[in-house]
């Protein structure tokens, strides 16, 4: 359970990250708004409270690392990294421009603070497992690797190759999240390949698993705290989320994976979000 001041800080930063994500995508005109907005609380919690990082030394060897396996959600991570000081906030307005440091799919060679490249779905989870195994071998016993996987992404077979391997090896410094926002590019996962019983699936694969409301900071904090107490198993926190949460024009919309956001929609959606937050809805 988070104290009131921390919770207030996190909520404030989440609102700011959502606004910056909308602005970032709008600067290009369109982008992966849905899956970016559904992981905001997780990213804000990890980078503001949990992770052992140095924004002025992004390559610090003993740092905690985060692999955004659903790499198309880059704008959300960029919003958080910019605010944390990895690069100027103004660079958020260069998304996908030629020569940018911020491609829509995360790229470790381009962006300070990105710990691994992702975009070809399924691959980041394996990389995260490799990083976590390396941290153990190198004796960085207090270092963790976090991975964020999508529910649609979990249709990739490699996710389950990595899961069975992580479970078999008992890599307990790997703390993964699956963002179950229930939607993928073509529509609802329920109508395409349903992702049922994910918590139970991961438990069967040897994980210490949780299922929580992915927009509840207290639930995220409690799950991570519990995960860190369980030794000998990797951890999976299933985040039940709403795709496009906070970008109100996309909420409840079937095709909200990637959306066009023009200047007018940007302004009106940010105003509507602030109004809703102030009303405490």
């Amino acid at each position, binding site marked *: 359970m988070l104290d009131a001041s921390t919770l207030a800080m996190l909520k404030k930063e989440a609102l700011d990250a959502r606004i910056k994500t909308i602005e970032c995508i709008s600067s290009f005109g369109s982008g992966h708004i849905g899956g970016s907005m559904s992981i905001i609380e997780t990213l804000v919690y990890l980078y503001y409270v949990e992770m052992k990082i140095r924004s002025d030394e992004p390559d610090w060897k003993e740092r905690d690392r985060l692999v955004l396996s659903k790499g198309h959600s880059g704008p959300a991570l960029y919003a958080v990294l910019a605010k944390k000081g990895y690069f100027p906030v103004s660079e958020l307005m260069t998304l996908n421009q030629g020569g940018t440091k911020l491609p829509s799919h995360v790229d470790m060679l381009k962006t300070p603070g990105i710990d691994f490249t992702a975009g070809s779905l399924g691959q980041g989870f394996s990389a995260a497992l490799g990083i976590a195994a390396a941290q153990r*071998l190198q004796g960085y016993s207090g270092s963790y690797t976090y991975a964020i996987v999508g529910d649609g992404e979990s249709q990739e077979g490699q996710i389950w190759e990595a899961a069975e391997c992580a479970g078999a090896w008992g890599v307990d410094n790997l703390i993964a999240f699956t963002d179950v926002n229930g939607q993928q590019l073509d529509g609802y996962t329920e109508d395409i390949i349903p992702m049922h019983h994910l918590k139970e699936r991961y438990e069967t694969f040897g994980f210490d698993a949780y299922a929580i409301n992915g927009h509840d900071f207290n639930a995220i904090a409690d799950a991570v705290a519990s995960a860190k107490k369980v030794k000998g198993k990797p951890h999976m926190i299933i985040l039940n989320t709403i795709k496009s949460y906070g970008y109100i024009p996309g909420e409840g919309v079937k095709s909200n994976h990637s959306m066009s956001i023009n200047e007018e929609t940007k302004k009106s959606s940010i105003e509507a979000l602030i109004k809703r937050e102030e009303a405490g809805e």
Partner: protein
Amino acid sequence: MKDLSVYANYRDVVVGAAIDLAKEHPDVVFLDADLSSCIGSTAFQKEFPDRFFNCGIAEANMAGVAAGMASAGLTPFIHSFACFASRRDYDQLFISVGYTHQVVHVIGSDPGIVAQYNGGTHMPFEDIALFRQIPGFNIIEPSDATSLYSLTQQLYDAKKASYIRTPRKGISFRYTADDTIELGKAKVLRDGSDVTIVATGVIMVDTALAAADALAAEGIKAAVIDLHTIRPLDTQTIESYAQHTGHVVVCENGRYPGGTGEMIARHLAMTYPVKMDFMCVGDEFGQVGSLAYLKSAYGFTPEILADKVRKLLH
């Protein structure tokens, strides 16, 4: 250089080179995909149990895990049969390793017809072409134990991802410790003025030397080049011998599209065009059989190579 007579097979040589690197460099780790007893990486596991990872029959994950490890400062060697080491994990090698500039060394064992009794499902003729599409990968196919050991060690020093194409069984010593084997520098095994035979790997270099002997008896002087490093291509030696002999035949235990022959033909087309021919697999899949049967089935014999040379010269 180490006394390599302690090794009985090529697999012992490549794993032995990795073990010796691991003794010197704590970052070296080995990952296998349930084929550790086939390549003998069990020896690495015995020596460094904490630095050996059996990933099970899941090559895509193995390549991704290796990429993650590399990003955290380790230097992984990963192994599977060449068919799986190239095809089952190709997007992972392309994106998670190649695109991210991670240094991962991929050992693909029993390439081409060396797969023999595992048959067509296990017989990659396309692996060279596939690795050539990934920018930055070094590619080697040594023709003997000495060069296999030496080049594997040099690949570590090169600090770039690599593909090591090698048979598992058998052993031969073409070179001694006194020979200089240099990554990216082709080895001229035999000089000649009429034709240059460029060959990669044990089978093709043996075939080229045997063909050169037969041709010599007819007064045809064939130069033979051991192209142990496919990438980076030793353009200097290739160009110089193309100019010197005016005819080039490229021999590879692989398929033509995207392969070594095509690579050399492209280079010579731009620099010093000469008449060329190729010993390789055409638009065909692999099949089961003994090595002798497969050599005959795909035309990988000294007789056929000598015949290609005769036709090229006329």
